[in-house]
């Protein structure tokens, strides 16, 4: 049940199902103008991006985006109190049910889509009653509580419209209800132009079976401590007004009601046309605008079929003394989106450079491993283990002799007389799937293996079947009986971990592959991938989803690139010092086929 007093008292957290930026932005603008500390919008369910940038005043804020209700993290999930459903009509039923089931503190929400099937609306009506949540809509511009809450397009989507609607005084006394979204806004405006202020307002939506029925809204207004008068825009079609008349006659609603029932014109037609809204067709006599207005009048409501008369009635509502607050209007106008968002570093107000939130000079006191991985992760490293293993990897990968492809290209460029940056780039550009880029691919193998809980031998067979080689496995020189001392050193970093599921899986794979061929051992790339995954998961508490994202953005190759840049640079300087001149192959070096 809709309870305005409780909604006024609660600090809300809102989730948006689907993204309609102008509407969501107008909700943030409303809250900014109402001097709220922070936006209530906490999450958006949509696809294709991770954040939506929005304005709160002049400042930009990031609203996280999730692909489904299930993916919303618990700390957000546990605080959600309201939803706004902006998804398409086809998805309204399923997405609303998911939301009602998914959030324990949920009080209710609004549904924006038009053309929701009647059957779905009725199902949602019964489900909402069972679960004790309110749902305004479908086809509704939403719910507005003056200076407190704007859940939808209601009141307008431009900041100027909100200002003109004068919905920022905390003690408005007129509740405004309408089946029509446009008329809701119109009535809010007319009310404020007439020198009254709105207490709260909602639009039922023009469908045949609105989920929040007029009776529910009227009872909410009756209970609301701020509301003294109710104004109502109804239309021909349906029987809602008869229920209202019954409640008013029986003194369940005692506050004065002013109503305009639109659609008197329908009388002119033998077969009336379908008017604007789905329900706006009077197929039976009781459904006509005239009959409904008459029923309300009989119950003591000031009901009319003329908008002009209705306006005159609204003007006669006694108004309280009004002092509208001064709004920080200029902060919600002429805003420009920044070109980039960034979470690594910035110039602080005191003039110093801050890197991952730390003063640069202070940061230099930290170990290199800590600085590098913190920057790569975009947040401070929490565990010693990660700093230490990173520092070790940075040192370990610094060079592997002049024979490897990247070093050769660097040297050739240097001998061709190219400058430092060009020669280094030439070496770096060689890094890819066959040279240096295997750590990330190995990380993907171990991650997938653990995620799907597949047996190592099945995993190996599957890859063999698809004729793919396994990254992180195999070495030219080292064999099972002649182990790589570097691998042993890397693996030693996991000795104090509890689960080390990724390392365990990688070693399981090695067991299968070395049984086939002695040199198919876990190599440096594979070991680094496994150990990093384990430490990130156990010591840094990264979720499986976060690990997957690191693989997606090539985090695991970054340490190689950084470290080996030192080696390439050294080879460049070395070649320049030795200055042998242009390198060239002779015909004997190439076999013509």
């Amino acid at each position: 049940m809709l309870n305005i007093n409780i909604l006024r008292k609660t600090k809300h957290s809102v989730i948006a199902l689907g993204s309609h930026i102008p509407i969501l932005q107008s909700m943030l603008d409303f809250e900014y103008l109402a001097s709220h500390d922070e936006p209530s919008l906490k999450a958006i369910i949509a696809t294709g991006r991770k954040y939506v940038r929005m304005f709160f005043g002049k400042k930009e804020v990031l609203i996280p985006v999730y692909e489904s209700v299930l993916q919303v993290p618990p700390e957000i999930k546990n605080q959600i109190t309201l939803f706004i459903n902006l998804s398409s009509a086809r998805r309204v039923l399923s997405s609303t049910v998911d939301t009602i089931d998914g959030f324990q503190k949920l009080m209710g929400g609004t549904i924006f889509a038009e053309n929701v099937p009647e059957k779905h609306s009725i199902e949602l009506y019964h489900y909402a009653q069972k679960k004790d949540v309110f749902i305004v809509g479908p086809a509704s511009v939403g719910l507005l509580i003056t200076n407190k809450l704007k859940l939808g397009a209601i009141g307008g989507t431009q900041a100027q419209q909100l200002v003109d609607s004068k919905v920022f005084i905390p003690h408005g006394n007129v509740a405004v209800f309408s089946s029509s979204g446009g008329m809701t806004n119109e009535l809010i405006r007319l009310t404020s132009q007439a020198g009254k202020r709105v207490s709260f307002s909602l639009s039922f939506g023009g469908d045949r079976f609105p989920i929040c029925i007029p009776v529910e809204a009227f009872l909410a207004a009756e209970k609301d401590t701020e509301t003294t008068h109710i104004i109502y825009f109804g239309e021909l079609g349906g029987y809602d007004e008869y229920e209202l008349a019954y409640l008013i006659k029986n003194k369940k609603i005692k506050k004065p009601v002013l109503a305009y029932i639109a659609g008197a014109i329908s009388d002119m037609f033998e077969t009336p046309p379908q008017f604007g809204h789905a329900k706006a067709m009077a197929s039976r006599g009781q459904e006509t605008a005239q009959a409904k207005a008459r029923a309300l009048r009989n119950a003591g409501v000031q009901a009319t079929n003329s908008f002009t008369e209705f306006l005159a009635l609204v003007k006669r509502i006694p108004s309280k003394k009004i002092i509208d607050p001064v709004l920080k209007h200029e902060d919600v106008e002429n805003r420009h989106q920044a070109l980039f968002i960034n979470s690594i570093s910035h110039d602080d107000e005191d003039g110093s450079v801050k890197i991952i939130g730390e003063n640069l000079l202070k940061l230099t006191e930290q170990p290199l491993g800590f600085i590098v991985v913190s920057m790569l992760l975009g947040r401070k490293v929490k565990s010693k283990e990660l700093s230490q293993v990173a520092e070790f990897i940075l040192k370990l990968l610094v060079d592997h002799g002049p024979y490897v492809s990247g070093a050769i290209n660097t040297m050739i460029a240097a001998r061709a007389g190219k400058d430092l940056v060009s020669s280094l780039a030439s070496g770096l550009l060689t890094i890819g799937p066959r040279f240096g880029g295997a750590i990330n691919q190995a990380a993907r193998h171990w991650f997938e293996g653990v995620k799907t809980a597949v047996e190592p031998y099945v995993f190996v067979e599957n890859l063999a079947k698809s004729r793919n080689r396994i990254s992180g496995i195999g070495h030219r020189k080292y064999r099972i009986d002649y182990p790589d001392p570097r691998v042993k050193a890397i693996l030693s970093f996991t000795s104090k971990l509890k689960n080390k599921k990724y390392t365990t899986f990688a070693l399981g794979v090695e067991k299968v592959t070395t049984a086939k061929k002695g040199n198919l051992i876990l190599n440096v790339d594979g070991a680094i991938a496994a150990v990093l995954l384990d430490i990130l998961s156990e010591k840094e508490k990264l979720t499986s989803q976060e690990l997957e994202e690191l693989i997606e953005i090539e985090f695991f190759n970054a340490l190689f690139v950084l470290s080996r840049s030192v080696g390439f640079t050294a080879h460049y300087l070395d070649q320049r010092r030795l200055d042998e001149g242009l390198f060239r192959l002779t015909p004997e070096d190439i076999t013509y086929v």
Partner: protein
Amino acid sequence: MARVKLTEHKAKSLFYDFLGYSYSGVSVKTGEKIPVLSSKKTYVVKVDQGVKKRMKQGLVKLEIRNEKLEMAMKDLEKKGYEHFIIEEMLPHESDEEKYIAIERTREGMTVTYSKKGGIDIEEHRDEVKQIILNDRLEMRNGKVERELSLPMGFISKLREFCDKYYVSFLEINPIVVQNGKIHLLDLAVEVDSTAQFFVASPKTSSSIRGGLARRSLGEGGWNEDDIVSEKHKSPEEMSVAILNKKSQAALSLTLLNPNGTIWVLLSGGGASITLADEVHNLGFGKELGNYGEYSGNPNAEETYLYTCEVSALLLKSNKRRLILIIGGGVANFTDIRITFKGIIKALEKFKNKMKKRNIKIFVRRGGPHEKEGLEAMEEWLKQNKMYGLVSGPNLPLNEIVRSALKELKS
């Protein structure tokens, strides 16, 4: 949109199929060939365009022999109809005719029934009974079936059918049972047009529609081709209906009086009806040429096309004085600058013809970017000497109608 009627032929194909019966009715449109039917039987020819009380209006031809079918159809065509249904005649006594209807309501499916069905159902109002089917009240243990002598389980079948095909309202009058077999002599079905996605059937070609006794006819639900067009629409109304189908926004146009004086280009479901009411309340309802509205933030191209259709209708009116009201409330999210850009582009196209008829245009609108939109409109109307009034939300919604009518009276 909302509740719409299926053709009787489609409705019967679906329902008979659902009941596991075969159905031999034929659907024929003007210009299509009537299939050769049995010369031993007689047939019923009915208009299949969702018209109520067909029998009383003479839109049903009974006991027609094969060779007379074409003549019967021609007769009905003369009355302005183009879509017909041909079925075998079922000899029966009038006391075999029962009535049953089911409607989707908030509380559940409401069943209305009567032992005395047929065309005079309204004369036996006392016999009509009603029950609501919902999960708590199971099917009342065959109460309805017993009273109407229907096969047991029919009511639950009926309910399943309504759920499966998103039927909002279904009326069988009369329903006749002979030797345990159900005959739906007249079936009217209203479906929820918004549910088309959930029941969509692949579009049926006209050759299949005309085929006899095809079991497959009922399969796969209904689509927009199965919805009746109750009256003949003008090309302008048709164009807007097509535009509406293609658009994310909602656009509608109904011609009320081809020779009206007052023409409207309105936005918003509620505001449009309020403005039309105002015309009616001030005593000019008969002068209203059209009704219609656009909403849901159409783009400039869409409002351009929409305005072209309204303008075309307006210019066809034979009235000496013509007025156009471009009206709407304070939009929540429809962009005024963009929608007005389209409207102005269309007015530009028709401006010479409009000037010749000395048309005055009255505008009242609010919403996102209203300032830019209203300024552009005012400038254009003044330049082209069609300015009646241009106003934002400071003018109460209804006042624009009063101003326009004042001009008309002067």
